[in-house]
């Protein structure tokens, strides 16, 4: 044992060194990279990007359609519409767009002179080919599929104009078409087999896919014939500053951060909250770009006991102290949300009063609901059944800090006699557990531009699995009044009415204690001080690198 102790001291010493280093670094002030923004752009250089997400199986964001795909696809593909700095939807590849009186016909006119990476010019044909590609079951699109779900027919009016026939009015269509999952790619490229198109989709973006070394990197190079619009008029008609981007996948957070520190990579995503908090001190730039759509939240499955009882749902929520956990785990990088929608969605409403900790009330509610007895471990019983909740957690979708937050919820719930069984699952098993309704609590992020995400998440139609097996209404809310509000809100062309309808819909969900909002979907990027011009993002807050340059 003695040797062990000595070794402890020795190793403790060795491991304490970095701490000392951090302290010294903390005392010295480094320049904030954003302060040097007025530097003159330098052309050239290859930026190395390190992603913490799993490597996509397909670079075409139509296929499947998750956020990691959007992150990389934003560099080589563009959408018909985009969102400006004020949060307004603006045309991008589209020049203009009109909708008929009845809201059932949408006409889109494209800009002239744009061509895809494979040389094919951008024409109305592309709109038709892309929307049909999204709707083709063989594409297996999940996000894009829902986004263009109301489009029934596409007719080509002239070379640059297409007309979309809708099954019902859809005021979210432009928002839907601003997402990378509905980005426009070369119709010629789409004619290839799926594997080929997945490996190198041809878009119109400022970079194009040169090669993809699986498990190593996606190599992007500047598209020299880039002609799409730029947010900044001065840059119109120019190409990107960077020669290219090396898009790497480094799943270990610590390794990724170390690589950024040592200068091997220039930009990383999914940084640990503690590293974000100290980024400025370490001379690193930080970009926080909360994702649009829903906030990150835990949903309570109201379709079965015990959460079919609203008072049990409220009791559970009241037993939790989420704020202290977020403070400790996120180091002030994430702000507590009390809303169903992301803070970037102007139509979101907040209901802080519903989520305050009140253990006394929680106990009282549970007693009233009949969960009065306790078993040997202190859990509540009713009819001899334990008050037990199953909580499958996807390790792919919940970062460690979030998993810790769930563990804290578990401990807090135990204090009022509720057992929470956390199951850490791989994505496949997690989907499986959801499909079999084997959950009482679940956290499933969903990104979509605009408040219409509420229909996808809370309409009773979404409790019925799509052909792919996935359903988005994990809270299993079946409320006809809510359904009506959500459909109506999507069809109206009166902005004020839309806002009001969505507010009423949100209020119903919040009042029912179906959801515990946590924070915005975290979307942080750290970059080295050589990287300049960071900040522009797509409609789904994925950064773009058209204006970024390296000053090494």
């Amino acid at each position, binding site marked *: 044992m003695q040797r062990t102790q000595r070794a402890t001291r020795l190793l403790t010493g060795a491991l304490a060194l970095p701490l000392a280093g951090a302290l010294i670094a903390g005392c010295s002030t480094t320049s904030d990279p954003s302060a040097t923004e007025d530097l003159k752009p330098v052309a050239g250089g290859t930026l190395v990007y390190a992603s913490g997400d799993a490597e996509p199986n397909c670079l075409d964001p139509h296929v499947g359609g998750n956020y990691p795909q959007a992150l990389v696809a934003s560099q080589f593909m563009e959408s018909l519409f985009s969102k400006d700095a004020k949060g307004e939807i603006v045309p991008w590849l589209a020049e203009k767009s009109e909708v008929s009186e009845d809201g059932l016909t949408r006409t889109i006119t494209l800009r002239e002179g744009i061509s895809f990476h494979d040389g094919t010019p951008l024409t109305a044909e592309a709109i038709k080919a892309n929307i049909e590609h999204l709707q083709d079951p063989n594409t297996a699109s999940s996000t894009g599929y829902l986004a263009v779900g109301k489009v029934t027919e596409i007719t080509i009016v002239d070379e640059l104009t297409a007309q979309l026939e809708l099954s019902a009015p859809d005021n979210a269509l432009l928002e839907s078409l601003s997402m990378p999952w509905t980005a426009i790619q070369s119709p010629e490229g789409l004619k290839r087999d799926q594997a080929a198109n997945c490996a190198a989709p041809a878009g119109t973006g400022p970079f194009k896919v040169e090669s993809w070394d699986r498990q190593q990197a996606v190599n992007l190079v500047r598209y020299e014939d880039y002609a799409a619009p730029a947010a900044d008029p001065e840059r119109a008609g120019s190409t990107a500053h960077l020669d290219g981007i090396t898009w790497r996948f480094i799943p270990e957070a610590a390794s990724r951060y170390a690589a950024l520190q040592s200068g091997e990579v220039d930009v990383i995503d999914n940084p*640990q909250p503690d590293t974000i908090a100290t980024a400025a001190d370490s001379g690193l730039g930080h970009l926080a770009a909360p994702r649009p759509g829903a906030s990150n939240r835990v949903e309570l499955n109201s379709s079965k006991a015990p959460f079919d009882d609203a008072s049990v749902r409220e009791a559970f929520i009241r037993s939790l102290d989420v704020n202290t956990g977020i403070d*400790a785990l996120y180091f002030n990088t994430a702000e507590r949300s009390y809303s169903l929608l992301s803070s970037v969605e102007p139509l979101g409403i907040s209901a802080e009063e519903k989520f305050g900790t009140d253990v006394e009330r929680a106990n009282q509610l549970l007693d009233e609901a009949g969960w009065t007895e306790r078993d040997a471990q202190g859990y509540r019983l009713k009819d001899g059944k334990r008050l037990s909740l199953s909580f499958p957690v996807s390790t792919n979708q919940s970062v460690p800090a979030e998993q*810790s937050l769930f563990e*804290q919820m578990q401990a807090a719930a135990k204090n009022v006699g509720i057992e929470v069984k*956390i199951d850490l699952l791989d994505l496949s098993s997690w989907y499986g557990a959801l499909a079999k309704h084997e959950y009482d609590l679940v956290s499933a992020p969903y990104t979509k531009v605009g408040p219409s995400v509420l229909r996808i998440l809370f309409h009773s139609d979404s409790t019925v699995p799509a052909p792919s097996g996935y359903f988005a209404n994990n809270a299993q809310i079946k409320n006809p009044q809510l359904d009506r509000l959500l459909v109506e809100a999507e069809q109206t062309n009166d902005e004020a009415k839309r806002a009001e309808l969505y507010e009423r819909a949100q209020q119903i969900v919040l009042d029912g204690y179906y959801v515990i909002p946590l924070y915005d979907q975290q979307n942080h990027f750290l970059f080295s001080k050589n990287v300049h011009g960071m900040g522009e993002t797509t409609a789904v807050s994925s950064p773009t690198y058209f204006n970024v340059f390296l000053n090494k």
Partner: protein
Amino acid sequence: MSRTAKILGTVFILFWLLTALAPGLIAPGDPLAVDPAQAFHAPSLAHPMGTDESGRDVFTRVIHGAGDSLYIGLAATALGMGIALVLGTAAALAPRWLDGAILRVLEALYAVPSLLLALLIIAFTGPGVGPAIVAVGLSTAPGYARLVRSQIRSVKNSEMLEAATVLGRGTWLKVQNHLVPNALRPLLALVTLGIGQAVIWAAALSFLGLGTPPPAPEWGAMLSAGRTYLHLAWWLSFFPGLAIVVVAAGATLIGRSLGGKVNAA
């Protein structure tokens, strides 16, 4: 080395036995009690190993984790050794063709590296403690089985057993008095070595997210959770890691002192 190692080894085993069976005696706290306001405290008198991201006391968790971690190591080794005893003994005593067949099966088990075999099994069963034990146990079995076989064979063909034959001992007496005790003794050394390695492999599975689920204070899982905060709070991963190293190194020491005795024979 022998005497000191023996005393150290005994103390070591007793300590971990006590820790595994009655962790509350050493660390009376609740290993699962969270206190988010107390998160990330560095080691101090109040928290000798600091606190983790949820404000849990790392010392309490390491002590309470001994049971789980050692259980996995022991259970996996017991499983591996059980299979090894059956296959190894059968191979050693069987006719040539059966011996050859068993050897091939062992080689097939051996040919897939331990962690890969574990992942393979988990691909079929899904993650969890049970599969982790089966996986680690199965992957260690062929190594043990080969040793069982060669031990039994070497004792079977030894002059010692011939001498017993010449003295007129029956088969049963030879097996009971000489074959079993002499063939199995070196295995004891191997088992202690193996327990340390099994704890490490099981921890590796937890590290990959395929072992014990959190918040159970299993060392590998703690290490896995703590590595996220390596830059901020080294103590989260250092102490569980140290516990693994101490157990594995201690087991090695005991194994070597046992093995040393056998080699001298």
